[in-house]
């Protein structure tokens, strides 16, 4: 039989293919760099929430640079860094790229971004300090602040009323009491799917707020080295308080996160009393295409209360920056598009239409004056941020916090062991060369 001799050859080739494709599993095809076109990578958020700002920026850019085409490509948070690194190795890629503010230090430090001139950009004197810090490395600016977001509790006013909650909770204890009332009124045997507060297990931005509220932190520097501190007593109290909320008042997926499924859409389906969300998730829940417009007028928001009376729980100061990769062949044009995109007019569009916090404090009044935005602007008074080291992005990529959180929900008795393991992993990653 021919087959018998032919078989070893089949195996050799199959193994060779396995080896050759082992690390190339999802190489992205690099974006083509055309001489007369600018490639811009923005996250899908811009497409969904402020497309008119993108269009206006491109229009004003084109009026100044006739003949240069702008090609905006929308990316997803899950794989944009992998795609970007693939284009780096190919030496081609986008001319403008949006980074999450926790990711940008890694790339500034590695020399992947070209330095920018602060004075080339509008409102640079009044930029949000958190985003400016995220976009700077060794005193130089590498990424322009784009927008920020603060999280608050988005809730159903009608359900709160029906459960006899007359005032929004001002302390964590009141928050828990309100959730207990909601569970009693709507949950349990009446509807086992009901969550008084929808809290997916891997939603680490919101879970870590508890850690910071109790005086803990993710990591600290000690003698020039980073040390993971999630297993320290204060952090553990925070994790315990979070565990109590997530286990008692939420029926959300323990291994899901805030985007799988989109929590605003689960909220829109009705079996949810509240969730911890960004300002723009409120209008998203009412979106006629994916949400439920009938909830208009039945939604409110308040800052997440602290366990210390009179304070709010620190919110994660999330946001984005815009950068020009070192591989761009049109750096000046790219910077000019960023300037057009982040001018006062477009920032106003983003704040009013998208519900985000604009990149400049000079526009703070827009948010403060709108009832749908004010609670989030108010919540931003107390905030926390991830350890500021270029290696932080690798902690996120390794899913260290998510793995710990879903582990704790599955096995609450092992909270301390899981936190210790996470701390060790964080120490290891943050101190890696």
């Amino acid at each position, binding site marked *: 039989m021919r*087959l018998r001799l032919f078989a070893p050859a089949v*195996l050799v*080739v199959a193994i060779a293919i396995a080896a050759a494709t*082992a690390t190339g599993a999802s190489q992205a095809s690099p974006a083509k760099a055309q001489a007369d076109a600018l490639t811009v990578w923005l996250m899908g958020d811009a497409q969904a929430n402020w497309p008119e700002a993108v269009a206006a920026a491109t229009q004003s850019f084109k009026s100044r640079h006739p003949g240069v085409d702008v090609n905006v490509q929308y990316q997803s948070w899950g794989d944009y*860094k992998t795609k970007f690194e693939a284009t780096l190795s190919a030496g081609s890629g986008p001319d403008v790229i949006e980074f999450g503010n926790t990711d940008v230090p890694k790339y500034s430090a590695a020399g*992947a971004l070209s330095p920018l001139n602060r004075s080339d950009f509008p409102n640079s004197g009044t930029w949000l300090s958190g985003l400016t810090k995220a976009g700077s490395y060794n005193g130089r600016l590498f990424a322009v602040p784009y927008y920020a977001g603060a999280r608050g509790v988005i809730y159903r006013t009608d359900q709160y009323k029906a459960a006899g909650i007359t005032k929004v909770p001002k302390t964590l204890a009141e928050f828990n009491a309100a959730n207990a009332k909601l569970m009693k009124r709507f949950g349990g045997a009446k509807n086992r799917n009901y969550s008084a507060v929808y809290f997916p297990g891997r939603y680490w931005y919101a879970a870590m707020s508890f850690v910071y509220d109790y005086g803990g932190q993710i990591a600290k520097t000690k003698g020039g080295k980073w040390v993971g501190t999630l297993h320290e007593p204060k952090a553990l109290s925070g994790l315990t308080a979070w565990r109590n909320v997530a286990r008692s008042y939420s029926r959300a997926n323990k291994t899901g996160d805030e985007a799988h499924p989109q929590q605003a859409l689960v909220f829109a389906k009705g079996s949810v009393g509240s969730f911890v969300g960004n300002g723009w998730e409120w209008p998203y829940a009412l979106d006629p295409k994916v949400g439920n417009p009938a909830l208009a007028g039945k939604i409110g928001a308040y800052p997440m209360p602290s366990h210390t009376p009179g304070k709010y729980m620190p919110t994660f100061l999330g946001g984005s920056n815009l950068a020009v990769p070192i*591989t761009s062949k049109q750096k000046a044009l790219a910077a000019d598009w960023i300037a057009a995109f982040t001018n006062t007019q477009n920032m106003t569009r983003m704040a009013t239409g998208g519900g985000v916090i604009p990149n400049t404090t000079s526009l703070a009044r827009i948010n403060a004056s709108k009832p749908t935005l004010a609670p989030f602007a108010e919540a931003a008074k107390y905030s926390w941020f991830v350890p500021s080291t270029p290696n932080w992005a690798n902690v996120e990529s390794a899913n260290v916090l998510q*793995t710990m959180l879903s582990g704790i929900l599955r096995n609450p008795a092992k909270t301390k062991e899981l936190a210790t393991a996470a701390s060790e992993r964080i120490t290891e990653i943050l101190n890696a060369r």
Partner: protein
Amino acid sequence: MKDETAVPLAVEPALVPARRRRRVRPGRAVSPYLLLLPALAVIVAVLGYPLYRLVALSFQEYGLAELIAREGRWIGLDNYETILGDRRFWTVLGRTVAFTAVTVGLTMVLGTLIALLLARLGTFMRLLITTGLVLVWSMPPVVSVNIWSWMVDYEFGVLNWGLAELGLDYFARHDWFVNPIEGFAVITAIVVWGAIPFVAITIFAGLTQVSGEMVEAASIDGAGAFRIFRDITLPILKPIFVILASLSVIWNFQVFSQIWIIRNARPEEHYFLLSIYSFVESFNASRYGLGSAIALVMVLAMLCVTFVYIRQMVRIGEID
């Protein structure tokens, strides 16, 4: 994953008996090799070069800074030392081997049963089942895994809904991925489901080679169905079984997209197989040298697993 079966007949010249070859004119002797050249060139281009790059990378420090400079720093065996000294690597390796053993075992058994069923069915039903198998086979993994992930979805999945409707309240809003054993059961189902068609159709094709007279003679001598399968079908089809099992080992050892997609591109560490571990180290942590070394260690581990089979096959060839 399945398209690797199209393989050029690279062993053909060896089959020409030496005696006959001598009588052939010298010009003729070169032509088989000339005919092989294009195929060889393609293989070297698409496999050889990436393979060389992979090996080279595994001896280098290659992070983000090196990626931008497009030049690595040679560090000898450091990457390999890091891997072999890492407890997590050994856990992942053990998990990968166990996963491969279970999925290959299930694929072979279920594939064989379906092939035996096909051999006994009438034309219409056989056509129906074969069509089903080919449809499964031709579906790209990204599409099928997404559909599977909807089916096992926590909030709205049809599996939880169906089980709850049957009265199993435990499954109302059951999270299939909290417990890694349940999670791997789902992943195993997806992988085996996708791997069965190739195995079943190949074995069915092989079954047509088993002569009816032999089976008839055996059953007249009083052999039952199992005995016939063990003593007649199995020995005749042994080469096919061996090659199918080896190919399945190679494919399932490097399962990637099924886990990656169903865990939303952010698998927890207890869902890491070697392929994912290598990818995460390379692309998420931007340590491309280390990731390449893991990939190579993975291939070496795979060679160890398949070595037994390859040796056996070479032996079968010798007897022939």
